[in-house]
C-alpha cells in the first residue's frame, strides 16, 4: 500500500468475458492495480492482473512434511523409545503399522495449516469488515480498481473500460466503500 493515500478509479463490469481483457489492457497500460474484484473465481484474471503463482503451496508442503515427522517421530517415541511393550509379539517399532497414522497426520496438519495460511495470505479473519467497491461485487459485478498515482491516465483508462462494456466508471476517495444495502437499488437500476 502506498504511504500517501491515493484516490481510486474504478470500473464496474457485468461479464467475466469483458473484465478479463479489460484487466489485461490495464496491465498493459502499466496502471497500478489496487485490486480487481470478482463474485466468483475467474480463471486467469490473476495472471491478467500480473499476479504470480500463490505461495500457499509451500505452506502445505512444509506443514505436511512436519506432520509426517511429528507422526513418525511421535509414534516411534511412544512405541519404541519411551516404553517398548510386547504387544502381540510384534516389534516395538512396527513401521508398516505406522503408515496409516503417518499419512493421516500429514494430511491433517498439512490441511489445517493450509487453511490458516490461506487466511493469513488473504489477510482475512473472523470479524474483519469487508471493504466492497460495489454493492453487488459479491453477486454479479466485477470491479477493476486502479490506483490514481503518477502513472495513471484517466482518459486512457476510461477508454479501456468503455471499450470493454464497463457498466459504470467513477473516481472515488481512498476510503471509499460501497454499502451492500444499496444492492437492491442497483439491481433495479441495472435491470432498467
Amino acid at each position, binding site marked *: 500500500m502506498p504511504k500517501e493515500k491515493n484516490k481510486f478509479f474504478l470500473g464496474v463490469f457485468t461479464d467475466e468475458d469483458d473484465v478479463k481483457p479489460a484487466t489485461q489492457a490495464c496491465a498493459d497500460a502499466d496502471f497500478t492495480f489496487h485490486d480487481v474484484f470478482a463474485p466468483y473465481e475467474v480463471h486467469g484474471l490473476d495472471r491478467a492482473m500480473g499476479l504470480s503463482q500463490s505461495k500457499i503451496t509451500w505452506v502445505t508442503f512444509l506443514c505436511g512434511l512436519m506432520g509426517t515427522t511429528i507422526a513418525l517421530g511421535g509414534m516411534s517415541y511412544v512405541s519404541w523409545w519411551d516404553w517398548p*511393550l*510386547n*504387544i*502381540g*509379539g*510384534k*516389534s516395538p517399532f*512396527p513401521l508398516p503399522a505406522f503408515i496409516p497414522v503417518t499419512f493421516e497426520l500429514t494430511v491433517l496438519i498439512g490441511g489445517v495449516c493450509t487453511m490458516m495460511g490461506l487466511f493469513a495470505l488473504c489477510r482475512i479473519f473472523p470479524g474483519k469488515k469487508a471493504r466492497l467497491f460495489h454493492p453487488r461485487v459479491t453477486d454479479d459485478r466485477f470491479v477493476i480498481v486502479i490506483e490514481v498515482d503518477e502513472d495513471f491516465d484517466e482518459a486512457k483508462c476510461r477508454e479501456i473500460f468503455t471499450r470493454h462494456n464497463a457498466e459504470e466508471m467513477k473516481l472515488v476517495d481512498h476510503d471509499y466503500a460501497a454499502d451492500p444495502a444499496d444492492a437492491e437499488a442497483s439491481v433495479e437500476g441495472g435491470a432498467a
Partner: protein
Amino acid sequence: MEIQTQNDDFSDMPAELRQEAEQVSKSRRDFMKVTGMAAMGAVIAGCTAEDRIVKPLVNKPEGITPGVAYQYASTCQGCSANCGTLMKVRDGRPVKIEGNNLSPINGKHRGLNMDAPKAGALCAVGQAQLWTLYNPDRLQGPRHKEDGEVEWSKLDAAASAAVKGGKVVLLTGTISGSSANAVIGKLKAKGAHHVSYDAVSRYSIAKAHADTHGKSAVPRYRFAEATVVVTFDADFLGTWISPVEHARDWATQRDLKFGRDSMSRLVAFEARMSLTGANADERHRIKDSERGAVLVELANKLGANLGAAGKHSVPADVIEKLADELKSAGKRGLVVTGSRDVREQKLCNWINHTLGAYGTTLDLAAASHQKLGNDEDLARLLKDMEAGSVSTLIVWGCNPVYDLPDGEKFKELMGKVSNTIAITLRADETASECTWLAASDDALESWNDFEPVKGLHTLAQPGVRRLWDTRNGYSCLLKWMDDADKNKEYRDVLKAHWEANVLNGQSWGSAVEMGFVDRSAANSKTQPDFRPAGMGDAKAAGSVADTGALEVTVYESYNLRDGRHAVNGWLQEMADPMVRVSWTNLALMSPTTMEAQGVAEGDIVEVSADVDGRKASCKVPVMRQPGQAEGTVAISLGYGRTKAGPIVHGRGKEEDAVDPDLLAEGVYRIGGNAFPLMGTTAVGGSISKTGDSIRLAKISKHDSQEGRPILKQTSLEEWKKKPNAGNDQELPSADFTIWPKWEYKGHKWGMTVDLNACIGCGACQVACSVENNVPIVGKEEVWRRREMHWVRIDAYYEDDSPFDGNLTKNENPEVGFQPMMCQHCENAPCETVCPVIATSHSEEGLNVQAYNRCIGTRYCANNCPYKVRRFNWFRYEHHNLTMNLALNPDLVVRSRGVMEKCSMCAQRIYEGKRNAALNNEDVKDGNIQTACAQTCPTDAIMFGDRNDAKSTVARLEKDPRNYAVLAEINTRPAVTYLTKVRNRPAKKSELALEHDAHAHEEH
C-alpha cells in the same frame, strides 16, 4: 500349601478381641463393622480420597496380620463324600475353599508327577460352598412357625419338653462322624430313634451286600486298581458315592504321560448320557428296563447259570467280548451299577465276586460310610407316622417333603406328629412345615466330624465367626436332651470325644492342622465271604418287561446334587456339565425320540408316570441329548425347589419362567421337581405338551467340531503304533517371522491340558469363578451367550455325519471335553488391536489385561480365535452385601464396560513368587498353581514354568501328543493340549491318517 496356622478356631482368639466382638450385636451391619475393623485395607465406600476411613483394631490378636490369608483344614459337606478341604481365611472370613492336599479321599499328586507337591482336588460343588455361607437368605435366628422370630430359650424349652416324652424320632441324612454318632447315641439312649436316609439312596448296594456278603455296607470302590470298568448307570465320575475320589483314581489309570503306556477301559451301559458315559471308551444305550437283562447275560457269559436273559438291545457279541475282557482283567475288573434295584446290585456283586475283585477294586472290609441312609428305616418311620405313634420329629439336615418321592404324603403325615422341630439352615420345604425352626450354623462356621471311610476320621472347623444368631446342631441336641455337656461349646465336646476315642494319643492340634486322622490301617483286610444263597431271585431282574412306554429316568444332577445346592448361584449358572443349560432342569430326549414325541427344544412338557401306584408328574422344558437311549426321557433331580428362596445374581433376582403364576405368589422356583418320578425300577410314563416354551439358557449352542482339528484324538492302538497319532497335522513352520522374537528370560508360564484326563466335570469353572470374583449373570444373560466364566468346558460330540446347522444327528456319539481358557498366545491377536494397550504381554509370557485401562471396544474379544474374553455388559454386582465377603480381596471386581479374561491367576503367581523369595529360593514346579489346576480332580490341567526344563509343563511340551489349538494361525499359545486317546479300536478316519503316514515313510 502348608497349613501355617494356629490349630484352633476363633474362640481361642485373645480374650480382648473376643470380648470386643461380643459387645457388638450380631446384626449384619455390625458384622460388617467387625470385619471392617479387621480388614485394614477393606474399602468401605466412596471414591474420593477424603472419604476413606481406616479404623485399626483396638487390640490386635497375635499371629494374625491383616491382609494375610491363612489356611485352615476342614471337611467339605457339599455332599456325603466328605472330601478334605482347606479354607483360605483372610481377615476373619473364608474367601476360597480348596481340596486338602493330604486327604486320602481327594489329595492328589499334581500332574501325576511324584516329585511335585500334592494338591487337593475338589468338585464344583465343594468349590461353591462359600455361597451357602454368605447367602443372607438363610435363617438368621430361631423361629416359630407362627410366631416368627423367637428367642433360643423359648425354643429350647419347647424342644426339651418334646424330647422327653413319647416316641422321639431324629430324621437325618448320612451321619458318619464318631463324635456326631456319640451325641446321637446319647439321644438314642434316652429312647429316641434315629432314622437316616439319603435323598439319592445307595441303600440297594448295602442291602445287596447284606444278602450276598452278610455285611450291610457300601464298599469302598478303588478305581485306581481297575483296568476294566463296566458301569450300568453308575455315574461315578459325576455324582456316584464319592465322585472326586473316583475320578482321581480312575484318571490314574488313564494316564499316558511320562512313559506310561497302558490305559484302563471303561464300558458304559446307560439310558441317559452321563458324565461317566461321555468318558467311556465304549458306550451302549439301554433303557432302564433292559439293564437287568444285560447284567444277567453278562453274568451268564462269565459262567453264571441264571437262565435266559430277557429282551435287550445290546448285540450278543458285545457282551461276549466284554465278558472276555473282564475275565482277562480278573480281579482288576470292576462292575458297578447305580440301580436302585437290589437284585441288579446282587448280580453286580456276583460278577465282582467271580472276578475276584473284592479286596482289589472294591473293598467291603474298609467300607465306605458315605451313604448310610436306610430306606427300610424310612419306610418304617412313614408307617409309624401314619399310625400316629410318633410324637416328636426332629428333622435335621434333610428335606423329605421335597426329596422323598412322595413328599406330599410326608408333609401330610407331619400333621400327625405333635412336635415337629427342624434343625435347619433355611426354612426349606420341610422346615417350614415344622413348628420350631432351630437355625443351624453353616458348615463353614461350625465344628463337626465325619468318617467317610471306615477308619478315616475327618474334622470340620469353622472358618468364620457365626454370621448370625445360629447354633451348632449338636449343641441343640445336647441342650434339648439335657445332657451334661449342654452348656459346652460343641468344639469342646468334640475335642473331648476325639481325645478319648479317636486320637489315640495323637495331639488334638495336629489333628486340627491336618483336618483328619487316618486309622484305616487298623481295618481288617479280609473281605467277607460271598454267600451264593444270598443271590435269591436276583435273576428275575433280567426279565423286567419292557412295556414299550416312554421310560422316565431321573438322575442326580452334578451341580445341585439332591437339591440342597439349589440356591447356589455359582452351581445354577455352571449347569450340569453334560446338559449345559443353565438355570433349569430339562426333559432330555434323543433327537429321534423328540421327533417321535413331536416336541421341540424349549417346549415345556409335563412328564407324568405311575410310580409305585402313585401318579407323579413334573413340568420341565425339553432339550435334545444325543446319545440318550431311544424311548427314554431323563430329568435331573435337585431342581424345582419351592422354598429355597430366590437367587440374586448380577442382574437381580432369578425368576422361573416355567411357572410365572408361582412367581406371582412369591415362590421362586427354578426348574421342576423330578423326585416324585423316582422309582426303584424302570418307570414307564408319558409326556404331554403344555403349549408354553422358554428360551433355554444354553452354555453352548453347537456340539460338533465340524471336522476341525480342535480336540484331537486317536485310539490307544494307533497311539501305540505312532505316538503322535491324531496329532500329525502338517503345519507351516512357526519359526518364520518378520519381527525379532521376544525373549522370555525369567519365568514363562504355561499350561498343559491332558484331554485324556479331562472328564468335563466343571470343577475348574467354579474354582475359577470363586478365585477370580467372576460374576454370575442369570438366565436371560446366559441365553444371550454372555456367561462370564473365564474357563469353559467345550464338549464336542464326535460325529461322522455331515453338518446340519445345529447339533449332531448321530444317535450315539462319542464326547470329548476340552477346557478352554485364555491361551495366553505369544502372538496374541487381541493385544495388537487394543487401541489403548489395555492388554499386552508380560515379561513372563502371559497375556495380561489391565481392566482399569480398558475402554470396552470389544475388539480384542472379536479378534480372539478362541473366544475366551468376557465383557462386562452390565454392572454385575452382588445385591446382597454379605455376598461381597466371598470376594477375593487380591484382585478387583470389574466394573461395567470392561473386558476380562483368564489371568492364569496372576495373584497366585505373584504370591508364589513372593513366598519363594521370602525363603530365598527359586519357584519350585507345583508350588504355584492356578485355581483350576489346583482343584482338577483328574489333574487334567497342569500349570508351570515353561522355561524350567524340569517342570511338568516343559517336559510335556516334548510329548508327541502335545499340540496347540489352532496352531495354523500361529498365535503360539502358552496353553497346549495333549491328544485324547480312547481305549477302543481305531475309527476309519483315524486309520486313514495313519496309512498316509506310512505312505510317506515308504518314499
